[in-house]
């Protein structure tokens, strides 16, 4: 979908991105992660030409992005940023309609799309359509920001630390929302963050950057189980690596169907990290598991946490 080939970007003497090559496959949720100055935001902004790269090539669907007018390529890629950048003088509805309007959609189609997106992001359309951005909470503003980025059904969604300014609970809810959006739409998403837990929770592909170069790229599990070097190990949290790994897997993946056990039940859709916490908290080695409807599904043994996935 997007092919970054040997791209570099410098500001005066400072190198922001150095000879970086990265393929972003269609339908993947790619998370670029790194500390400040790692070049992750620069890389993202070079994709929609908010920043022009100095050398190398960036291909979008096989075509060099410089062949397009910048506006054209940007309208085909949704864009959401940390401080939302909602237009304060427009209603929520008009904000979301920005790109469809630029593309000249008929009014009825725009109106339907706005309502659909408000609904998708958990904002009742009749209540929120006519509100102004300043009348919304931070989390609601960011939902509108995401809805606006998705409005014209873009081929790619670019997100620059979209949840960085939110409180942990709101952030968690929006991350869940993004997972759902990705599952339902299968859209190609590129997200920049410095929060490793956010990255592990969202990414299907994780790209760790440092000083303008890629240190390691792969699935979250690959980075956790086979870190390329000490930098990766440190970044992922040396002592918590095992716990983070458990966070990537569901109880359902280790479930012993049909078995029963005593105690407070675990959710089959919950992560093994939560299960570990329950085992320790209850001082128990076996706990029952229930499915999404609360029906008994089986049991999980403490030792199952160490067993490779079935």
């Amino acid at each position, binding site marked *: 979908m997007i092919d970054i080939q040997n791209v570099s970007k410098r500001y005066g003497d400072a190198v922001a991105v150095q000879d970086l090559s990265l393929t972003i496959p269609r339908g993947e949720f790619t998370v670029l992660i790194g500390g400040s100055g790692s070049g992750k935001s620069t890389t993202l902004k070079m994709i929609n030409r908010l920043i022009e790269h100095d050398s190398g090539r960036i291909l979008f669907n096989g075509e060099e992005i410089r062949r397009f007018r910048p506006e054209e390529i940007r309208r085909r890629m949704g*864009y959401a*940023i940390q401080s*939302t950048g*909602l237009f304060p*003088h427009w209603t929520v509805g008009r904000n979301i309609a*920005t790109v469809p309007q*630029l593309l000249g959609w008929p009014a009825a189609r725009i109106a339907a799309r706005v309502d659909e997106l408000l609904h998708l992001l958990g904002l009742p359309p009749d209540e929120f359509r006519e509100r102004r951005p300043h009348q919304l909470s931070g989390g609601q503003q960011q939902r509108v920001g995401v809805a606006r980025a998705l409005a014209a059904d873009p081929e790619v969604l670019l997100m620059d630390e979209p949840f960085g300014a939110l409180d942990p609970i709101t952030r968690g809810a929006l991350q869940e929302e993004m997972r759902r959006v990705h599952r339902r739409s299968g859209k190609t998403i590129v997200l920049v963050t410095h929060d490793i837990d956010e990255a592990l929770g969202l990414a299907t592909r994780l790209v760790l950057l440092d000083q303008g170069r890629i240190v390691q790229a792969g699935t979250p599990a690959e980075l956790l189980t086979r870190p390329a070097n000490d930098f990766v190990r440190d970044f992922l949290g040396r002592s918590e690596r095992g716990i983070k790994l458990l966070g990537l897997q569901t109880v359902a993946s280790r479930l012993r169907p049909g078995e029963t056990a005593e105690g407070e039940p675990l959710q089959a859709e919950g992560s093994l990290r939560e299960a570990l916490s329950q085992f320790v908290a209850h001082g128990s080695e076996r706990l029952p598991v229930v499915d999404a409807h609360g029906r008994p599904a089986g049991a999980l043994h403490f030792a199952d946490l160490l067993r490779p996935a079935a």
Partner: protein
Amino acid sequence: MNRPRGAALPWPAAGDRRARGGLAAAPNRVLLVLVLASAAAAFGLPLLTQAPNRLVTGTGIGLGALLHGPRLALLLPAAALLWSVFLRPGRVQLLWTAGWASAWLAGLVALAGSHAAAVDSGRTSFGGGFWVLAVLAWLIAADAVQRLRPGVLARTLGLAAVLSPVVVLALSGALDGLSLFKEYANRQEVFDAALGRHLQIVGLTLAATLLLGVPLGVLAHRRPAFGGPLVALLNIVQTVPSIALFGLLMAPLAALALAWPGLGIGGVGLAPAVVALTLYSLLPVVQGTLTGLRELPPAVLEAAIGMGLTPRQVFWRVEVPLALPLLLSALRLTTVQAIGLAVVAALIGAGGLGAIVFQGLLSSAIDLVLLGVLPVVAFAVVADAVFALLGAWVQRTRP
């Protein structure tokens, strides 16, 4: 006028309100001072002056000598205002105060008109006492309206309502005996022409300021290397006294007129007046535009560009609407300034209400000066209110 909400004049603290029978233990101090000053002015200064003709200094007539018969009704608003000092603070007291201040002001004006009509010879003019009382009455009313914490529209309408009885009196012919109105009757045509010219000068200045100032402000924003020197230059222009600037423009404009007679401009008259006033107006408008654009949240611009708005769309759909409130407040400033400065432009033959003012000054006819000055003040107040309303309207949906 633009006192931020919440920073209102000192209310008596809540604990001071030991309200019994509607009376406040701690009276409103501002109102008390204004009422006491009014009482002093009413007794100490002549309300009107009476002179046989324009050249002789008139003799003063105090309020006491004027009050008899039905005119004693004027004591009613005076007593009501005095009473309002001791009323319990609140909406009712404020409306009561504003209403009676308006009645008091109208009563004073009506009294003057009635006296002038009764004398029917010589010149009856407003004296020092009248002006002091009128200003104090206005302050009492404006303070009361302000304390009601109205929105911009409500405040404008409220202040207009306070003044409306005086306007009705002036239009009804009840004041025609006053020398000010006699001067107007004598020179109605001159006055109308001067007013028209004044409007023309201000209108042309406003148009030229918009056409030049806004693009210059945008340019200064986009090219800081150009913006710095431009603002510095306009700052220097601001410091040149208006009369000197008018003079300085005479020579180049006269030369221009000689070179291209077809332009219809000259070294004196309308052209230098509009050019000079425009030069004065440019700084606030350039700076207002510049600041309005500069203070846009960077995230809003990044989002706009990132979503694929063209530079032109970013400008018209995002930058202009968001910078508009600051531009409007700059225009409000320059318009009021231009209305006042246009008076001076009469000295270089531009005409306008200034011509009447200077004619009055040269012939020591204070009424004639007033005939020129009062419309200028009224014009400025109205322009200020119009821009305030416009500003509130474009901001109606903002935080």
